[in-house]
């Protein structure tokens, strides 16, 4: 039986064509993946199906109900989990769930069975505010909220972006169970391991459906986009070890009684690409904030480029670059204006800025976008630009905090090409990521669990140490041992 039928749907936003004559049919009980680059029209499609948008032409039906004429029926039987912001950060876990139950005129108790699997995992924290949960837990809560009225169709728009691999695996186990129970699930995701777990997938690009079929077929057909050749990367050790840029010795950070970072020690060599991994809430961001001079350590010692993080943090700031997971350029400035601003901050003069801006943009292939407002660039471009701006002043070290969240594999590969170029110029790269294929690209990696570093070495060393053949398994083995379930 067909659960969802989309016929020739088109939608424009101004001049931009978000969906162009899209037709698709999804069977009941299917776990259907929608993949495609940022700005491909995935969210627009979800919003049309969830009756939040009206298509210009064409029609869509969900569970046999037309999205235009019978939206009330649809809203009763659909669960929708938008990519972000679907929870009230100031309400507790339980209050959030109760609120969503009330919206659908039901109670948590009445439908407890349907959400038991997921909710039991977060129930111990039911009095905690949603804003204080880790990424993985937030997603579980959001899913519980979307399921509390027993929907027959579930729409999930990139539910696992920014979530660590272990939490993602748990999340997908839940989805499998729901599918087995007969629920129709449509999900979009940038992660290939998740794509492979779908029954069928559709590849959406620039508003058009390029292909529908089994995951392997589609990934194979469009392998330029999804499975780019891995970057060749020599495993040889970089430069001499006595030339360390970052030296961390027993660094701590406590918030009240909570040890966010618990005596970590490591060294990063000059010119190295150092992967700093860990589950959501393991303390990565806190550690990085101390190293970048944004936060004072509670104990221990660390130097960056020879400067002490607790006293000489203003000196450190002259010698580092930083790119955060929150997008860090000014969206209302033009491309060249952003470059000019940050170059000016690091003390370059007008002439130098002008000539370097042009050469940078031509290297990125963005020369014709010099006068584009940054807001209008696609996400992947913004990230490449933000990275280039963060190393524009040739810092000793560049800190990258989840720089590639939510981008498709080919764009991520381009991004990593830039990272290699920077490393070749002698810039040390300190990077956090949730993509385990990216972890393999690093010279050395550390894995943080519960505020401590539990593993440190080259990717191949770690794989042989734990007797597995990929980084994903190494990470999963370590992160599963985590004692504290949340941050």
């Amino acid at each position, binding site marked *: 039986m067909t659960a969802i039928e989309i016929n020739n749907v088109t939608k424009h936003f101004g001049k931009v064509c978000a969906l162009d004559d899209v037709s698709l049919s999804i069977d009941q009980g299917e776990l259907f993946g929608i993949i495609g680059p940022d700005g491909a029209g995935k969210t627009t499609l979800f919003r049309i199906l969830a009756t939040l948008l009206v298509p210009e032409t064409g029609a869509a039906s969900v569970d046999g109900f037309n999205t235009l004429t019978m939206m009330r029926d649809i809203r009763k039987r659909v669960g929708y989990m938008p990519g972000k912001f679907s929870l009230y950060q100031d309400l507790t876990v339980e209050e959030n769930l109760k609120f969503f139950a009330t919206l659908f005129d039901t109670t948590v108790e009445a439908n407890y069975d349907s959400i038991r699997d997921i909710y039991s995992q977060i129930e111990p924290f039911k009095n905690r505010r949603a804003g204080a949960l880790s990424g993985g837990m937030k997603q579980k809560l959001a899913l519980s909220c979307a399921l509390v009225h027993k929907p027959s169709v579930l729409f999930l728009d990139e539910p696992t972006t920014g979530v660590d691999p272990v939490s993602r695996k748990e999340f997908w186990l839940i989805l499998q169970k729901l599918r087995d129970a007969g629920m129709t699930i449509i999900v979009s995701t940038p992660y290939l391991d998740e794509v492979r777990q779908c029954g069928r997938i559709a590849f959406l690009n620039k508003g058009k459906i390029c292909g529908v079929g089994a995951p392997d077929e589609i990934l194979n057909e469009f392998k330029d986009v999804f499975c780019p050749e891995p970057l060749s990367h020599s495993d040889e050790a970089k430069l001499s070890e006595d030339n360390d840029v970052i030296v961390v010795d027993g660094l701590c950070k406590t918030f009240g009684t909570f040890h966010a970072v618990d005596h970590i020690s490591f060294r990063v060599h000059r010119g190295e690409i150092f992967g700093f991994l860990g589950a959501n809430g393991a303390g990565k961001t806190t550690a990085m904030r101390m190293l970048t001079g944004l936060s004072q350590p509670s104990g221990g010692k660390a130097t960056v480029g020879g400067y002490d993080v607790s006293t000489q943090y203003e000196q450190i*700031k002259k010698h580092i670059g930083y790119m955060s997971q929150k997008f860090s350029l000014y969206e209302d400035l033009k491309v060249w204006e952003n470059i000019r601003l940050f170059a000016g901050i690091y003390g370059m003069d007008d002439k130098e800025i002008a000539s370097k801006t042009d050469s940078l943009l031509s290297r990125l292939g963005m020369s014709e976008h010099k006068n584009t407002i940054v807001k209008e660039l696609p996400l992947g471009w913004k990230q490449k630009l933000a990275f280039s701006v963060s190393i524009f002043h040739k810092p000793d070290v560049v800190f990258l905090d989840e720089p590639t969240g939510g981008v498709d594999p080919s764009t991520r590969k381009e991004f990593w090409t830039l990272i290699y170029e920077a490393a070749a110029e002698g810039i040390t790269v300190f990077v956090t990521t949730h993509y385990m294929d990216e972890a393999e690209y690093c010279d050395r990696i550390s894995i943080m669990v519960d505020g401590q570093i539990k593993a440190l070495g080259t990717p191949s060393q770690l794989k042989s140490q734990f007797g597995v053949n990929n980084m994903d398994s190494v990470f999963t083995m370590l992160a599963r041992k985590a004692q504290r379930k949340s941050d």
Partner: protein
Amino acid sequence: MILRYLIEKEFKQIRRNAFLPKMIIMFPIVIMLVIPWITNLEIKNISLLVVDNDRTTTSQRLVHEMEASNYFIFKGMSSSYDEAVKEMEKGNADIIAVIPQYYSRDLVNGNPTNVLIASNSVNGTKGAMGASYLSNIVVPSTGKLPISVLNLFNIYQDYKVFMIPALMAILLILFCGFMPALNIVGEKEVGTIEQINVTPVGKFSFIMAKIIPYWVIGLVVMTICFILSWAVYGITSAGPLAVIYLLAIIMALIMSSLGLIISNYSSTMQQAMLVMWFCMVCFILLSGLFTPVRSMPDWAQYLTEINPMHYFIDAMRIVFIRGGSLFEIMPQFMALMSFSAVMGTWAVVSYRKNN
């Protein structure tokens, strides 16, 4: 040097904002064109009933004079005082004038005579003002002029002259207080402030880059106000403009520092907006802008002493209306200078790049 790039960025952002440039032009225009008319404390259009028990040419001349005054709406004659009071109870009259019998005879003979003025004092100001206007008409007609009144500085007692310098102060609060506060909290919410914090931009440069653009905007707004008040109302400053601009610069510094202090302690727009709004209402009501400070209770008068707005409005009125020079506003000027020193330092100190 860094400052230049930061300020350039602020101006670009303001210009690119769909709303702000329009507001910078429209706000002073609306405030200057509309508010001076409605914040008028002059009492006009008082309904007047007259009871003439004399009915002579003299009494009739007095009635005509009352009729001719543009402060009153002449509601006609009543046959008796009681009837007139009934009318007042119905709300048809605010004030009653009773001309006694033998009014003209007593006047001619030089005997004391009394015109009774009864006013509805539910609205105290209206009643008192009406009564005093009316007595101004009655007293000269008796041939005696016991008091002479000389209105200094604001000869025609025009309320606009009194209000315009104060309205400029309100505009300065709005532009120099709210905008930098919302600007910094906005950067916090988007996350770009984090990016600035990992660069070598110093606290002082960062804060100055946030203040200076709003200083400039504040002065532009002031200038628009001066041009409008001259073109529309024909009101110009009696004192030197340079002193007024100097005052405005200091006030703008105080207000933008306040905005920055508030934003440094708030994490969301809502918080910053609410606290700023609270401060602004207190400042305005405790400044003597609408109500004279001297008629406030003692404790409130002490409060006005820690209100920079109070000194600013005082000084503005002294210079703008009375034509005072910098020398005459020295106490206010020194007070404002100390406020700006304290607030400015607080703004820089409370901004934390490292915690």
